[in-house]
C-alpha cells in the first residue's frame, strides 16, 4: 500500500510539473466548453435582413416591429428598390430580404389575402431554411392574432412542443459531446502517454526490476487521471450550468456515477494503448486518430447516427462515446433514471472489462 501511494504521489508530481500536461488537463476543457457554448453554435442569431416596405401601413408596421422584437433578426435598413436588394445580397451582408407590396393592409382586409415575398440567401441552405422558418412563424402568428375574433369554418392548427429542449438550444447537445470529448482526451491520451513515457525514458526498465507488481504500476498510473477527470467533469458541469444556463434535469448523483464509469472505460482504453505501443509518438497518434476522430464523428454528438450509412452505424457501436452520449442526454436533459439507461451502462461496463482484461494479459513483465 505504501508503495502504491508513493507511486501515485510521483504521478501527481509529473502532472503538476509539466505545463503542457496541465494545460491539456484543465485549460482545454474550459476552452472547449466556452467555445462550443458561445462561439460554435448552429443556432441562427441576429441574422441581418433588409425589408422593402412599399405599403407602409398598419399591418406591415406591426409585422416589422414583431421581427425587430425577436432576437433572430437585425433589420439592416429600409430599402426602396429591388436593385438595392440584389446589391446587398451580392455584398454577402444579409441573409434574407422581405418585400411587402403596396396596399398590403387593404388587400388583406378587403380581398382577405395579401402577399409577402421572402428572398433568402441559400448559399448556406441550413441558414436559409432556418431564417425562412423563423419569418414564416412570425407572419403566421400575426395572422393568427387577426383571426382570433373571427369564426372560420375549417381550420387545423398544429401545436408543436419541443420536448426537453423547448428553445432548441444547441448547448444542450454540445455539452454532453464536449464532456465525452474532453474525458476521452484526458483519460485515453494522457494515460497512454504517461505510461509509454516511462518505457521511452527507460524508467520502466528500473520499475520492472523491482518488486512492484505490474497491476500496481498500471493502477497507480491511472488513479491521478481518474481524480483529475473527476474534477474536469465537475468543472464542465458547473460551467455549463452557471455560464450556459444548461439545466440538469436528472439526478446529479446518477450523472456523476455514469461519468465515472465512462472515465474508467477511457482509462482502461488508454492503458491498453500504452501497453501495445512503445513510443510516445505512437501512443499519441493512436489516441488522436484512433479515438478522438471516432469520438467526434461517430458518437452522435456532431452528426446524427441515424443518417449514416449502415456500415458507419455498425462501427459507431464500438465507440464508447456513443453510449456515453446516449446516457448523458437521457440523464442530464431528459431527466430519466437508471431504468432508462441500464442497457448502455451495461455495454460501457462490458467494454471496460474487455480493455482491462486484454491489458493485463498483454502487459509485458520483461522488456521484449
Amino acid at each position: 500500500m505504501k508503495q502504491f501511494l508513493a507511486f501515485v504521489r510521483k504521478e501527481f508530481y509529473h502532472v503538476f510539473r509539466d505545463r503542457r500536461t496541465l494545460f491539456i488537463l484543465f485549460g482545454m476543457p474550459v476552452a472547449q466548453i466556452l467555445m462550443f457554448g458561445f462561439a460554435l453554435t448552429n443556432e441562427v442569431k441576429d441574422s441581418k435582413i433588409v425589408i422593402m416596405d412599399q405599403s407602409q401601413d398598419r399591418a406591415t408596421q406591426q409585422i416589422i416591429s414583431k421581427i425587430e422584437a425577436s432576437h433572430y433578426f437585425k433589420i439592416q435598413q429600409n430599402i426602396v428598390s429591388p436593385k438595392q436588394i440584389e446589391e446587398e445580397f451580392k455584398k454577402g451582408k444579409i441573409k434574407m430580404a422581405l418585400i411587402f407590396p403596396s396596399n398590403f393592409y387593404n388587400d388583406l382586409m378587403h380581398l382577405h389575402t395579401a402577399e409577402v415575398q421572402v428572398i433568402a440567401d441559400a448559399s448556406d441552405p441550413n441558414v436559409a431554411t432556418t431564417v425562412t422558418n423563423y419569418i414564416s412563424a412570425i407572419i403566421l402568428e400575426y395572422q393568427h392574432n387577426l383571426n382570433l375574433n373571427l369564426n372560420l369554418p375549417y381550420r387545423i392548427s398544429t401545436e408543436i412542443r419541443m420536448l426537453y429542449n423547448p428553445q432548441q438550444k444547441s448547448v444542450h447537445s454540445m455539452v454532453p459531446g464536449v464532456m465525452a470529448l474532453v474525458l476521452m482526451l484526458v483519460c485515453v491520451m494522457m494515460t497512454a502517454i504517461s505510461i509509454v513515457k516511462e518505457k521511452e525514458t527507460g524508467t520502466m526498465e528500473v520499475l520492472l526490476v523491482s518488486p512492484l507488481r505490474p497491476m500496481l504500476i498500471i493502477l497507480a498510473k491511472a488513479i491521478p487521471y481518474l481524480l483529475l477527470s473527476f474534477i474536469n467533469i465537475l468543472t464542465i458541469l458547473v460551467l455549463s450550468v452557471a455560464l450556459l444556463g444548461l439545466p440538469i434535469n436528472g439526478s446529479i448523483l446518477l450523472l456523476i456515477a455514469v461519468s465515472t464509469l465512462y472515465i474508467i472505460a477511457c482509462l482502461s482504453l488508454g492503458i491498453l494503448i500504452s501497453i501495445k505501443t512503445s513510443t510516445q509518438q505512437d501512443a499519441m497518434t493512436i489516441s488522436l486518430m484512433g479515438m478522438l476522430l471516432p469520438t467526434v464523428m461517430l458518437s452522435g454528438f456532431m452528426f446524427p447516427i441515424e443518417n449514416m450509412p449502415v456500415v458507419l452505424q455498425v462501427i459507431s457501436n464500438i465507440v464508447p462515446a456513443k453510449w456515453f452520449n446516449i446516457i448523458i442526454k437521457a440523464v442530464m436533459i431528459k431527466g430519466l433514471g437508471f431504468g432508462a439507461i441500464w442497457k448502455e451502462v451495461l455495454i460501457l461496463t462490458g467494454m471496460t472489462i474487455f480493455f482491462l482484461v486484454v491489458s493485463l494479459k498483454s502487459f509485458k513483465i520483461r522488456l521484449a
Partner: protein
Amino acid sequence: MDVVSAHNLTKIYGKDKVTAVNGVSFTVSKGEIFGLIGPDGAGKTSIFRMLTTLLLPENGTATVGGLDIQRDYKQIRKQIGYMPGRFSLYTDLTVEENLNFFATVFGTTVKENYDLIKDIYIQIEPFKKRKAGKLSGGMKQKLALCCALIHKPDVLFLDEPTTGVDPVSRKEFWEMLKRLKTQGITILVSTPYMDEAVLCDRIALMQKGTILSINTPQAIINKLPDRLFAVKAGNMYDLLRTLQRNTNISGSYSFGEYVHVVLSPSGISPEDVQSYLQQQGLTEIEWKKATVTVEDCFIKLLRE
C-alpha cells in the same frame, strides 16, 4: 559460492536473427567485482538484461543468487539492484524525491539503509532539492547508484556506469564500488574503458557477443607472452607505416602518444627493429620497454 552463474547464454534479436550474445558462460563469486569489458555492441547490455530478468535468453541458463532467471524472476527482482546504461531516473523529480520513491518502491526507507549510501549521497546532498534532470553527468550516476543501492541488494548490476562521466568522477565512482564490495555486495559492472578493467577483481574481455578471456586483470596481463615496447619518432605516421611493413614484427598500433610494438617471444630482437627503423630514415627515435595493459591484451586477443 557462485552468486551469479551463466551457462551458454545466447541472445538473438528480431527477425534478422542478430546474435547479440553467443554462448557466454561465466561465474561470479560473492563479494567480487566482476567486469564485462568490451566495445559498444559486444553484448554487455544484453547479458545484463538477461541476468536482471528483463530479457529471456534464446539458449542457455543462468542463475542469480541461486535462482533461475527465467523461472524465479520475481524473487530475483527483490534481491538485485540494477542501474541501466541510460540514465533512468525521473528527470522532473528532485534528487530527494527520486531516492525516496525508489526506497519506497523497494519496501524500505532512506533512513533504514542510509549507511550504505552515505558516502555517495553526501556528495550530492547539497543538490537534493535540484531536479534530477539538471544534475551533471557524474552526479546523475551517483544518484542512480544510490537509487540502485537503497534497498541493500545482494547483487548490483551496473551497466556502463562511468560512460560520459569526467575522469575525476570516474575515479570516485570506482572507489565507491570498492567500498561497497567490503559490505559483501557482489558487483557486476560493464565498461568500454580498458583502464577501468584493472580495478575489477576479475574481468571478461568481450567482443561481438563472445567472451575472449576471463581472468583477473593481472593474470590476463601476465599471460601475454610477447615483448612489448613503446616507440616515438619525429614523424609518427611514417613510424607506424614503416613498422607495419615489416612482417617480422607481430604487431604495432597507436597507444596514446606512443606506438606500441609487439614482438613475439622468439622472433626478431628489439635491437634489430631499432636499426631497421634507422635504416628506413626515421629520426628522433625514442625506444623504451612498455608496461603491458589490459588494452594490449585485448588488441592481441582481437587479432587472433
